[in-house]
């Protein structure tokens, strides 16, 4: 009886372990394989708009033309760099704003805490598009901000905020701030406050105790929050499209244009793959570094 039940347990355990792998296989690895396959094809005017992987004789017909084009045309390199810089700037602003907020929430009393958390999550109840449109209303030439500044007499004529990199930067930081706050809150809330007190008791000033204790212990949350902001910000399409100007070209926009405007699927796929490599390589390196760090100090 027990042998039977343990066997059944084993089956369930295998299913439980297999499920996430299956998920990754179906929704990540398979699409990735398809994208990779398309990126190695040539564009044609047909349906689908790319050459098949195997030619008439059943030989593999792969070409790296799209990647070659990507590497030779400077526009792409510049756009990638611009995207990295923009996403990094938004991530840093999110961290600078999010850390004190998360810290404040984690240290507030239990009743206030749930209210504050609700306020952080509340914007999600309104459509993302609407919220970005609201920023347009704020940052327009005759929007709330310009009108207010003119009323104050700080400026005579409206300053251009909309359709600039700055508008994209603000939009990105605003949209992704909760993704920074929540993981930070989760780590800070778990931290024993007496650790900070112990540091102060042993002679550390408040600032010193923060850098010696709070910051290193909050690191996992900082890393999680930064990745959660940086990765989607890198590929963001809607915010630059709505708030950015025509010259503030980011990689998400390029990707969209190659797919839908130029109908160059192989090139668009190549853009996507290079973006993925740009994101995955630093994350893998970071993880390896962390693992080694842990081994060294253990």
């Amino acid at each position: 009886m027990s042998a039977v039940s343990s066997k059944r347990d084993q089956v369930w355990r295998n299913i439980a372990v297999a499920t996430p792998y299956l998920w990754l296989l179906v929704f990540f690895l398979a699409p990735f394989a398809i994208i990779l396959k398309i990126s190695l094809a040539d564009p044609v005017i047909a349906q689908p708009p790319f050459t098949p992987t195997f030619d008439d004789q059943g030989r593999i017909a792969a070409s790296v033309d799209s990647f070659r084009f990507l590497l030779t045309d400077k526009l792409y390199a510049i756009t990638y760099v611009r995207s990295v810089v923009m996403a990094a700037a938004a991530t840093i602003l999110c961290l600078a704003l999010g850390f004190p907020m998360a810290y404040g929430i984690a240290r507030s009393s239990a009743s206030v805490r749930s209210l504050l958390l609700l306020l952080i999550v509340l914007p999600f109840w309104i459509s993302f598009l609407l919220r970005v449109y609201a920023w347009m209303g704020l940052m327009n030439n005759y929007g709330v901000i310009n009108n207010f500044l003119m009323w104050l007499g700080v400026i005579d004529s409206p300053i251009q905020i909309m359709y600039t990199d700055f508008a994209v930067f603000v939009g990105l930081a605003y949209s992704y701030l909760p993704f920074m706050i929540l993981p930070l809150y989760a780590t800070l809330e778990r931290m024993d406050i007496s650790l900070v007190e112990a540091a102060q008791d042993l002679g550390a000033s408040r600032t010193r105790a923060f850098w010696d204790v709070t910051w290193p212990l909050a690191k996992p949350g900082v890393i999680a929050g930064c990745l959660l902001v940086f990765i989607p910000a890198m590929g963001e399409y809607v915010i630059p499209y709505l708030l950015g100007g025509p010259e503030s070209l980011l990689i998400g926009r390029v990707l969209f244009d190659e797919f839908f405007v130029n109908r160059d699927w192989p090139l668009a796929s190549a853009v996507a793959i290079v973006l993925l490599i740009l994101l995955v390589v630093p994350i893998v390196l970071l993880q390896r570094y962390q693992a080694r760090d842990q081994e060294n100090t253990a």
Partner: protein
Amino acid sequence: MKDFIRIQGVSKLFGDFVAVDNVDLEIARGELFSILGGSGCGKTTLLRMLAGFEVPSSGSIQIDGVDVTHQAPYDRPVNMMFQSYAIFPHMNVASNIGYGLRREGVAKGEIARRVDEMLELVQLGDFKNRKPDALSGGQRQRVALARALIKRPKVLLLDEPLAALDKKLRERTQFELMNIQDELGITFVVVTHDQEEAMTLSSRIVVMNQGRFEQVGTPKEIYEFPVNRFVADFIGTINTFEGVVTVVEEERIEVYCEQIGDTLTALGRQLVEVGQAVQIAVRPEKIFVSKERPENDKDVCIEGVVDDLGYLGNRSLYRVRLKSGRVIQVSSQNRRRSVTRFLEWEDDVWISWRPRSAVLLLD
């Protein structure tokens, strides 16, 4: 120096709640002083005010002649061992212990030397490079102790130092703590809810209740001469008899207890008047239990029946029901080695005690 630590008129309010209510206390240099009380009595708040994590709402605190009432924790000559031990999880044992010296800017070689010295003191030499999560509860406690002692503070504060340890380890650690205190001569202030711990560790104890001090004294004074019902009840077990004073002679007071319909005698110099309502209190181990009526007619003697008994190895506990229905707790040493019981359930017995063993309580 009798007033090494001097607490004067200190109160602490959290909103409307009075955590510590106008207390005065003096602690001598080198004392091992315990603050004893139940949860919420204000003992931890008092300790945190000594450490500098709370500022008194009124009153002042002096340590070694310096007013520290408004000093920040990192400026005080005081270190604390936290109840949770608060060991930095991202540092190994040696860097945890050396942290205080690093903040002081002590030279590296000197830090290494003093860390080794501390590791030896708390017998953790082999664990120098371990991470805290690879330590047992007892080892963590010793890391916390070493870390708090390395700066050679004038006062070491210990918040429930032994609460997280199991019973055997607690007993051993108790003596280690006392030895270390004796060796270093540092003044220890311990907060605890465990009366046994306070009794064995301390040179003096203060019993706290609702933010106020009920009694300050040596463990013996507190146990044998409690000043009121709260202290008598809080420390150990005690049988109390309510009654009215009938006779007051020099050092001898007679109290009539309606409850048991008998007159009890107590010795003492308390100022009482005939007719005053008082309580006579007797500790279980001060009461003798016997099958025959004891000869000595100076002793207080009452007849009863064994209601319940418990064998604890070194001693036995009896619950004796008096004729009035009142149940009295008696504890007696098991001096003789025997498998048969000296008393059985429902045995008729006499309980007796010497008048000087009883305490007269006024409230």
